[in-house]
């Protein structure tokens, strides 16, 4: 005798009913899983950040119309229909959250990490952003303002971290390699040591 858990049975029931009624095809389901498990991820966002560090015109475009600038690098679609790029500066640090559920810019960051979906992050990022950042090991200067961006199904945010000192002359690929997922959510800053240490 075989065994499936209650939730596995529910998913099988849902899928078989939807397939039978012609709403979804099994091959489509497999393709979607494959895409989000291995093809889409923070590497895409890192490419956007690295380009913006090297190309002031691209950075200006990103500021003006992030959706189009990001699409020009080939990253668009589900969850990226309306993007805003939030540029970190010495005066202002950006932090992204979704207080309602887990809206997240899939085309540039892939699927959200577990903590992004957790209630403590979703509530504390708004109430105590400095405390949350401290837990991530980030201590900002007292004079740096923290701006919170609450994602919605309509609008998704990509944080553009500051380019770290000591990266002068680096190639686009070298720069992209030090841009972490968390730095593009705002729960980390980018350092040059990551790769060259």
């Amino acid at each position: 005798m075989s065994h499936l858990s209650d939730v596995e049975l529910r998913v099988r029931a849902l899928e078989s009913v939807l397939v039978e009624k012609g709403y979804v095809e099994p091959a489509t389901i497999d393709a979607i899983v494959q895409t989000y498990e291995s093809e889409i991820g923070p590497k895409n966002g890192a490419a956007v950040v690295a380009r913006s560090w090297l190309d002031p015109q691209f950075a200006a475009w990103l500021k003006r119309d992030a959706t189009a600038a990001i699409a020009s690098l080939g990253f668009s679609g589900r969850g990226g229909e309306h993007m805003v790029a939030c540029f970190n500066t010495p005066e202002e640090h950006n932090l992204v959250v979704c207080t309602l559920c887990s809206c997240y810019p899939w085309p540039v960051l892939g699927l959200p990490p577990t903590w992004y979906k957790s209630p403590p992050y979703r509530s504390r990022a708004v109430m105590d952003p400095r405390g949350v950042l401290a837990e991530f090991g980030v201590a900002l200067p007292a004079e740096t303002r923290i701006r919170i961006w609450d994602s919605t199904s309509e609008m998704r945010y990509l944080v553009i971290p500051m380019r770290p000192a000591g990266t002068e002359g680096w190639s686009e690929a070298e720069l992209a390699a030090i841009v972490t997922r968390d730095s593009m959510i705002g729960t980390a800053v980018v350092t040059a040591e990551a790769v060259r240490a």
Partner: protein
Amino acid sequence: MSAPDAASLFRRDAPPFRAPWEAQAFALTVALHDKGLLTWAEWAEALGAEIKAAQARDPASCDDGSDYYLRWLAATETLIARKGIASEAALAARKAAWERATEATPHGQEIVLANDPLGGAG
């Protein structure tokens, strides 16, 4: 930079899907969206409501985000029932059919709905 707190909830991480069913549930919703059967605005509202209801039942229930795809699945079931795509009763009947098919399938063999001794319909 101070040392990250290793005990913090926020340091826990995991691959996007912890089990195949999570990936299946995720992909089904995306496929319904791609077919124009739901909008992301409707989706965010439904998922948000499920998460809120779960927290109301047990405030600590999803603190580590581990039952996130349970909420995801429930939101999909609710939304497709509301839209008349498949009723709660139809899904329950189909689930029972899969359960019978599973019990009738020898261990190690592929579980298919046709193994349901009552015929798999439902």
